[in-house]
Every structure is written in structure tokens, then in C-alpha cells.
């Protein structure tokens, strides 16, 4: 199974497995992971024995478990396989998995990510991401960071959050994987209302990557992936710019010789509509004012985006699975026409500190 052979130039997504996101899921971590993983392996046309490497994405503090992969690798069928856990968004785990396949050491790699946000006080959780001596005592949280960035985005860009949310929620309403929930206009932290903030949900997603195109019935080419991380010091970051997102997009596209206009569909993990506007403007995808129309057309977030259902850690893998559906031309209710090239995104860290991008293409 494990190869010490030559390097690999082409990596494919062989299969994807998702569990429907839920506001409060009844399944255990292991059940959710098992369901996503078995779905992905079945979809890939491979068997569990064909998988040589397992890379999982999970976060101990979110799970309330130390070294949470200790038990979940069993649910993923990882018996004497190459294994690693990445404590980032699942798409960053996919970035690592892609590099391992390109090295020639792995052929078929399973990547999965999961979380049960319903069990977590998300404000306390995000407060723990700050330096315990300096920032944490000031009460910094994810909501506060998002609000600071949203305020700066509002100043800088022409954003109509209601038009954007309307378009996103319409798309989300057609997506069977998303949670459907009406949220209020109550201002939580200026300028963000309840409906602007991420709805944290439970979920699990898995993908199978392969170097062997011939073995999978419906491959999607993973053209490139890239990740970048902003400073860990908030004061060194510009609130009206997502620099690491811009770098990740530019490098991912550069690696496969594409420009932003070559991408048919963008599946972006936005915590708020303001951040989606910052992303598209910063990466020159479109102007913020054009964004609601592009969302309606299905060019940006035909899935409905992440704000409506954020399964933290698994978020980027959900986007990737949706992107793979489009590239395969699969029948789905939220992007009927399909797409040739899709750019997918995941993020981790407060204020979107780490951003990862992958570019997918329909296999020839």
C-alpha cells in the first residue's frame, strides 16, 4: 500500500461523504465520523483497505477530549495506516494530504473533519485562542474580532448585508445539507446582528484523495491547494483586509496557472456577509456591490455559504465536497448547471487568521 516511489503530479478527489449539518446532532463524534468516512469511501469506488493514509482535522478543546484522534481513527478505519491529525480547518488537512500524495509516499488518502459546536460555549472557546497573559483578560472573542473587521469592511466597501444575506439564505434553503433557521435582527455586537454571525452547528465531512485516476469512477482533479496564516498578534493585522486569504488565493491560482476569471464557481467559508465582501474584493473576484447578484447566479456560494451553517473544522471540507459535486456535474438542487472549475475555501482561527484554498476541475 505505502509507496516509496516517485513523485506524483496529479491528485484527484475520488470521493466525498457528508453528514447533514444539525444545530444539535444526536450522533456521537465517532458515529458522525463513521458516517462521513464510509460515505466518502463508498463514493470513491475504493475499499477501506485501499486507503493507505488518514489525515484528520479536529480540535481537542472543541471536542473536550485530549488527543481526540486517539479514538476517532478507529471510526475512520485507521488500522496500521499512516496517520496524522491537523488542528486546523479540514481544508488545511487536505492541503497536507495533497503534499503527501505529491511526495509519492501515499496513493489513497482519507481526510476528515468534524465538530459538535452544540456542546461548546463558542465565546469561551474563542477567548481561549488569545494570549492568556495579555489579550484574553481583555475579553477578546471571535465575535469581537469579527465585529472589528466587519466595521472596517463597512467603512471601506459598499456592502448591503441584507441583500447579500437574502441571496445566501435563498441558496442555503435549497441545500439539503444545511441547517434551516430563521435568525433575528437583534444587534449582538455592532455592526453584527444575530443573523450576520455564524450559526455554529454539528457536522462531519470526509474526502478521499488519490493519485490513481483510473481506480475511481468519478474523479475530480485537485489542481492545487495553498494555505497562509496571518500574524498571531491582532495589532499587526489590518482589520479591513484578509491578507492571508488574498495570499492563499493568489498562490493557489498561480500554482495551476489560472486567473480569478478562470474560476466558474467560488465556494467560500464566510463567517459574516461583511467578510464575504472583504474576501471577494481583496482577491479581485468582484466588487462588493456586485456580490449579491453573483450569489444569486450561483457563481459565489451556491451552497448558501458558511454563515448559515458553520460546522467548524469540517467547514472547508463541506465546501470542497460541494465543489466536487459541481465539477462532476452531479444533480443537486443548489447548482443545477454544474461548473468546470471551482475554488473552495476554509478558515481557522479568530478573525480568519488561517485561510486555505483549493482549486478543483472537472476531470477530462
Amino acid at each position, binding site marked *: 500500500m505505502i509507496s516509496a516511489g516517485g513523485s506524483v503530479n496529479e491528485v484527484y478527489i475520488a470521493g466525498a461523504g457528508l453528514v447533514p449539518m444539525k444545530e444539535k446532532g444526536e450522533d456521537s463524534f465517532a458515529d458522525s465520523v463513521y458516517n462521513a468516512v464510509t460515505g466518502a469511501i463508498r463514493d470513491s469506488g475504493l475499499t477501506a483497505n485501499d486507503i493507505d493514509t488518514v489525515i484528520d482535522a479536529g480540535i481537542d478543546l472543541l471536542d473536550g477530549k485530549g*488527543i481526540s484522534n486517539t479514538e476517532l481513527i478507529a471510526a475512520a478505519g485507521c488500522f496500521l*495506516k499512516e496517520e496524522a491529525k491537523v488542528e486546523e480547518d479540514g481544508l488545511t488537512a487536505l492541503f497536507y494530504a495533497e503534499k503527501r500524495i505529491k511526495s509519492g509516499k501515499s496513493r489513497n488518502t482519507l481526510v476528515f473533519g468534524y465538530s459538535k459546536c452544540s456542546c461548546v460555549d463558542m465565546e469561551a472557546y474563542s477567548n481561549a485562542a488569545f494570549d492568556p497573559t495579555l489579550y484574553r483578560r481583555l475579553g477578546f472573542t471571535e465575535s469581537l474580532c469579527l465585529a472589528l473587521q466587519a466595521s472596517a469592511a463597512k467603512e471601506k466597501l459598499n456592502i448591503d448585508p441584507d441583500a447579500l444575506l437574502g441571496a445566501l439564505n435563498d441558496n442555503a434553503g435549497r441545500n439539503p445539507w444545511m441547517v434551516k433557521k430563521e435568525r433575528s435582527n437583534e444587534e449582538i455586537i455592532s455592526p453584527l446582528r444575530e443573523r450576520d454571525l455564524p450559526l455554529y452547528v454539528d457536522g462531519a465531512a470526509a474526502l478521499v484523495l488519490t493519485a490513481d485516476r483510473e481506480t475511481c469512477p468519478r474523479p475530480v482533479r485537485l489542481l492545487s491547494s495553498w494555505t497562509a*496564516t496571518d500574524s498571531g498578534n491582532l495589532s499587526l493585522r489590518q482589520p479591513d483586509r484578509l491578507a492571508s486569504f488574498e495570499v492563499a488565493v493568489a498562490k493557489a491560482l498561480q500554482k495551476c496557472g489560472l486567473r480569478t476569471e478562470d474560476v466558474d464557481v467560488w465556494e467560500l467559508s464566510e463567517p459574516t456577509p461583511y467578510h464575504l465582501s472583504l474576501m471577494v474584493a481583496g482577491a479581485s473576484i468582484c466588487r462588493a456591490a456586485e456580490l449579491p447578484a453573483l450569489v444569486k447566479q450561483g457563481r459565489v456560494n451556491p451552497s448558501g455559504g458558511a454563515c448559515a451553517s458553520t460546522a467548524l473544522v469540517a467547514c472547508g471540507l463541506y465546501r470542497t465536497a460541494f465543489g466536487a459535486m459541481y465539477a462532476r456535474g452531479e444533480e443537486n438542487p443548489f447548482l443545477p448547471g454544474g461548473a468546470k472549475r471551482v475554488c473552495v475555501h476554509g478558515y481557522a482561527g479568530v478573525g480568519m487568521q488561517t485561510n486555505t484554498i483549493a482549486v478543483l476541475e472537472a476531470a477530462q
Partner: protein
Amino acid sequence: MRKVAIIGTGQIPHRSRMFEVNEQELIAPSVRAAIEDAGIEPSDIEATVFGSAITSIQDGIEGVGRLVVDSMGGVLKPSFRVHTGGTVGASAALAAVYLVASGDFDVALAAAGTVRAGASGPRSQRALQLVGDPIYARGFSGGAVMGLAMNFKKYMEKTGTTEKHAAMCVVDARKNAGRNPFAHLKDEVTVAEVLSSPPLAPPVKRMDMCPTSIGSAAIVVASEKFAKGKNTAWVKGISAVGEPNTYPDRDVIEAKCVREAAGRAYSMAGMEDPAKQVQLVELYNACSYQTMQWAECLFLCGDGEAKDMVEKGAFSFDGKIPINPSGGVLTTNNGSDAAMLRVVEAAVQVMGKGGERQVGDVKNAIAMGWGGGQQFACVFVLSGDANY
């Protein structure tokens, strides 16, 4: 796989407490030392990987890798954190190797370390209890020492090894640590002192266990093109294997994950008889008896033969196959960087930079990490020979 070399390593002296530094300040000196050792500029680093074990659950710090990214020179570069329990330092080094081996990077840096508590302190043990399933396992989970005590007892029953053999491993480790300026516990001890040290969970006594150390380590890996002309340790074989922490008929003494990882790494390196082909082994012995258990699982001798090797001094500093001339995990255990230090120390020996702890001309070396719920193993084969 493309050729990848370790071109620089860094570490700081470890000790029991380090109240004067935060996470960023703990990592920075090791990163700086590794970059200087490699003879490169910080701007040459194209990607970074951070390894920390149970930081979030133990210290309540979420995403510590993103907190230290500035200290690693990783801002606006690919930077991520891996977490595989005690194995994590080696897993981080392994990730850096894969990034370079992918052909997308020429230079990558990995670092590891934890500032607030080491591997075997009381806080760590409480955190390790949280490894167990909350419904089925946590209620009777006893942390690392309890698990190791059961394994120690089983290992003795299976192999005829005695507590005295394990104590001899501690004596060797302390002697070796005395030559290592970065090691934590350097006071020499006698077999009698080890055997009479206070019991923790019989047969494990206090001196059988690793200490709680604060410190950090870093490693720079590079492509063949970038490494040209540099003093290097070539990564000839790698493997990191996981197995579920419970399954029917699991034999933790057999440690399938370690044997499997070793077999794969040796096969990749074209190594048929490690006992004859390596001049040094750095292994992850959190408890004294593991020096012998891992020697067997790494195929340095047959099952049950390690005690005889210990009696003959074969694993001592001047022995046939020196094990842990750095002092090993028995004398320095940060939890997060311990497995990386195995790779660092093996590379240091291959590069001939060991100073007083250099065991001689090391052509091939093995580095091994172990952890999780006694289920993850990571094995490196390093070599001074670029022709492979």
C-alpha cells in the same frame, strides 16, 4: 520520494519551570538556533509546521500554532499545527519533510514545545485522563503512569525482564544526559537509588519515569537542490503509523504500530538489518522499561533479548548500538518536543555536531516517537550518505 535533508536543528536547555517566557518566547530561540545552524536566512523558510501535544486541553490555549506563527517566521506562509499526542514532535518534523518532498517547497521549518506543563506533571496527567471516552473509559482512566505501569508489569512477565534491568536503563540515561547541555535531569543515579525511589504505580517508581520539562526544539529541512554543499542528515526512511487504542486481542507490548512504522521506514531506506546498519538510536522512552521494549520493536534485537543487551552494555554510550546518548525522554520530556528531539539528536549525531555526546562516526541513525493512547509511532531513518 524526492530527496530531503535536515540541514539545521535547534533546541534550548530544558528545565522544570520557565515562568519568564510565554509560548512565543519559548519557541523563538530554538527556531533562531535552527536557522543559524542551517546557515540560512529567515526569509528562506517557505512553510512552517508547529507541533504541540495536549496544549489546548491542558493549558486552555486554542490554536497555539497560530499564536506562535510569528515566532516561527510563518506569517503569510503555509503554517499549520499537527497534534498526535507524544509523537507530535516527530509528526511535525515529518510534515515538514512531506512539504519539501512534494516538490512545492525547498525549505520548511518545524518546531515544537509547550511552556506551561511538561509531559508528566499533575496537570498533564489530568489532561491525559481526558483522552479516554467520556462514557466508557474516562471514569477509570489513570493518565500515563497507570498505563505504563500495567505495560511494564506485562512486559516483565512476557520477557523475564526485571525491575533491575529497567533501573540500569535509567542509570545509563542519566550518565548520557550529563554530556548533553540541553538535557534536564543530569544527576547520576545508581541502580539501588532507582529501585528504592518512591512508588508511583507499581512497578513504576519515580525514577523510572520521565520528568516534566519545559523547552522547545526546531528543525529545518530542505530539498536536495537547496541542501547542496551543506552538512546534512538525509531522510532515507519515514513512517508514522496509527492503530486504534482498543480492539480485540490488542497486545500493547507487541506494539504493532511501532513494528509496522519501523518496517516501513527500513524498507524505504533499503535497510535489511538495522542492528548491523545503524550506529545510533534515539527512541521515545517515557518509562525506563520502554528502552528495552522499543529496542525489540525496532528490531535491534529479538523479542525478550533486550535485557541481555542491557546487561552487556550494548545500548550504553560506548556500546554496540548506543541508545539515547542525549539522555533521551527519561531525562527530558516536554511532551510536545520530546519526539522532535529524537529526530534532532539523531540528526546532530549524523552531522557530527554532538560535541561531548557525539558517539563517533554515525552513518545511519534511527529516531522514533511514540504516543497517543499507546497507538501512534513515528520512525525516521537518517543517513549521512546522499547516495540512495
